[in-house]
Structures are given as C-alpha cells and as structure tokens.
C-alpha cells in the first residue's frame, strides 16, 4: 500500500516524535509512505471569513503538489493540517466562483486545481485501509493494560463535515488503543479545547485548561494521555510547567502521540519514540510497564 504524505511544519521540528513513530509503525504495517517532494505550510487555521480567499492559497498549493506527483489522495498526521487542508478543499468544491478567482490569482501553477484530491488523516488510513483487526494481529508488544485516556481536542472531530468520528463522543483513538492492548480510559474533557494558539499570548489560559483536562483524565485513572495534534501536545505536555506553578496540587502526567503507542506495539525501537522531545518524561512509566 502506497500513500502520499504531507507532514506540515511542526512534524519536522517540535513534533518529530509524532513523525518518527508514525513512519516506523507504518513500515512495520507494510505501508509505503512517500513524502511530497515539495510542500509548504497549510496555513494552520482555516479562515472563517467569506471574502478572504487569499488565506486558502497555501492549502491549495499543497493539493496541487499532490496532483503533480500523480496521487489522488494525501495523508496528514497533524489534526490542524488535516482540518485546514480538508476544509479548504471542501470550500472550493462547493464554491466554483471562488475557485475561478483563485485560478486567476495562481496563474503560474501548471494545474488548475479542481478539488479532486482526497485529504485523509492517518487514523482513517489505519481504520479503513489497514484495518484495526489487522493491526491487532501484528502487535508484537501489547501495551500491557496501560491506562490510556485519548484526547481528541477540536479539529479531528469538528465541524461535522470534516470530523472523522462522532463530534460529541468520538472513540476511534480509544478503539485503536484497545487493539494495541491498552485499557481505554473514557473521560469527560476528551473533546474540550486546550486553548490552542492562545498559548502564545495568553499562556495562563492554557494552564487552566491543561489542569482541567489532565485532572479529569487522572480522576478516571489514566496513566498517560494520548493526543493527535502537535499544538495540543505542546499545551498539554510543555505547559504542565505553568500548570504546576498555578495549581499546587497538580500531578504531572506523560503525554504521548497515539502513534508512539502504535510504534511501541509494533515493536519499534526507543529511538523512534524521540522521548527527548517531551517535557514530562514518559520513560520511567514505559520502563516500569516493560514497554521500552
């Protein structure tokens, strides 16, 4: 199975642990991943205005790059890239007038893009193409009932036309965790916003959200929280520093990408997990459980 892969900016820096763990796990699963030879930032957030088409160009250029490589779909890992690329794609398909304007503006591009690339998240590929049952059969190191609370955040599940699971009660990450041998811990804050980009100018808000979200997961017995977005990962992991300062009773908890759990189960090496990029070190817990 071959897939075109769009990484996005943060997967190459702060979220290298997300990328490396994914690439190793997919290798083990027999998926041939081909990174686009050229790509640019997707824009990170989808513009909510009716009249500002300029903001959609970054995403469209990436979709043109996919077409140039003769692919008809592209896989993303980052929830923000997934949401932005997919919404822009849907928007131009539904609005031929805007598409015309965009074509006129991007007349240096050789392809007049028509919205015909399918934007997919890794989770869709794992569930629909590889299939969870097959993944279960290929598990080399079961997760030993590690208690995992899956945090979905916003952009994987909202809005409805983009989301890859139920908006209010998604379970896809939990289902995958169970297949890998973990114990899924359901908790009420799994789709509550972490504060996202407010982390730049209002980090105190993130400390409050991180406290609420992680304490709720811990109250349900979670040993780790798994995520699918590099911005959620930064807020929930690195902002635990600020959270500890603000809330004296706060207990730190490791945050892992769901792909790091997948990589462990598929028998990848510790180097593929890039645990050095974490603020709260998951190493001791994973060692204690015999997972690394």
């Amino acid at each position: 199975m071959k897939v075109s892969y769009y990484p996005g900016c943060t997967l190459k820096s702060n979220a290298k642990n997300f990328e490396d763990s994914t690439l190793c796990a997919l290798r083990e699963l027999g998926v041939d991943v081909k990174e686009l030879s050229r790509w640019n930032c997707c824009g990170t957030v989808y513009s909510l205005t009716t009249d500002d088409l300029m903001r959609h160009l970054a995403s469209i250029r990436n979709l043109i790059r996919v077409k140039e490589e003769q692919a008809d779909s592209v896989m993303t890992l980052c929830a923000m890239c997934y949401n932005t690329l997919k919404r822009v794609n849907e928007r131009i398909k539904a609005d031929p007038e805007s598409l015309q304007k965009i074509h006129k503006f991007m007349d240096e591009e050789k392809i007049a893009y028509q919205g015909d690339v399918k934007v997919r998240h890794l989770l869709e590929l794992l569930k629909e193409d590889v299939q969870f049952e097959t993944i279960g059969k290929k598990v080399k190191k079961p997760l030993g009932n590690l208690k995992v609370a899956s945090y979905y955040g916003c952009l994987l599940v909202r809005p409805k036309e983009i989301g890859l699971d139920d908006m209010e009660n998604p379970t896809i990450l939990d289902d995958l965790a169970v297949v890998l041998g973990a114990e899924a811990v359901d908790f009420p804050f799994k789709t509550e916003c972490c504060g996202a980009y407010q982390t730049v100018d209002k980090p105190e808000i993130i400390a409050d959200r991180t406290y609420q979200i992680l304490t709720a997961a811990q109250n349900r017995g979670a040993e780790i929280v798994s995520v699918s977005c590099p911005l959620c990962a930064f807020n929930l992991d690195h902002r635990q520093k600020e959270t500890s300062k603000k809330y004296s009773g706060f207990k730190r908890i490791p945050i892992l990408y769901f792909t790091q759990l997948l990589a462990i189960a598929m028998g990848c090496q510790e180097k593929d997990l890039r645990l050095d990029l974490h603020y709260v070190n998951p190493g001791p817990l994973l060692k204690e459980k015999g997972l690394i």
Partner: protein
Amino acid sequence: MRTNLSKKKIEDDFVKKIEEISGQKLLACYQCGKCSAGCPAVGEMDILPNQVIRYAQLGLKDELLEAKSVWVCASCYTCNVRCPKGIKIAEVMEAVRQVLLRKRRDHVEVPKLSEEEKACVPAIALISNFRKFTS
C-alpha cells in the same frame, strides 16, 4: 448595565459588515444560550457568545469592538456544532476580529513577545496565533 438601543444602530453598516464577513444571518439567533453553555472559554470572557450575537444584532458596535471575548475564542467550533439554528458563532467572532484587524489594529504585537517565549512555542502555535490575531 444600561444599554441604549436605536433603530439607527441596528441599521448601521456595521451589522451588514458582520453578516457579510461571517456569512451568517444574525437574526436567526433566538438567544437560547446553548453556545455559551458549551463554550470552554466563557470563564475568561467579558460577554458571553450568545451576547456577542445579541450585540451584533443590535448594532452595539463600540461594545463589541472593545469586547475581550472575541480574542479569547480559539475557534474550537463547539458552539457551531451545537447551535440549534445552525448559526456559526465562531464565524461571527472572526468577523468582529476582522473588522479591527482590517484597520490594522493588531491584537498581538509580535515585537513585544519575548525571545524566550517565541523560541519555546512550536511553529504551529506562532503561525496560527499570528494568522488569527494580527493583520
């Protein structure tokens, strides 16, 4: 709080501009408050999401443009997906921000952010923040 309502304000271009930029019909809102009930950011807001819509319906331009709430909203879409009338509240929040940003009134002043802070946060945070909060 005393609020002065007037036909002039309701018919002001400001209301039309918010409707145009957001693509939403403000009068569809009947103030059920479901958006505010589910919003994770209300704790930091000065006026609630349903009040943002109400102020916009009534053309309370100065009050809206001074409100902290639109800058606390992180476009998480919880309000949008729960609104029984299908109003996209996050789009209205964006329209209010855009009215100010299009006059080059940035919410985040990039030169004022410390080097330490800029170095610590990932690219995804900086780019999304600047796209939402600067012109």
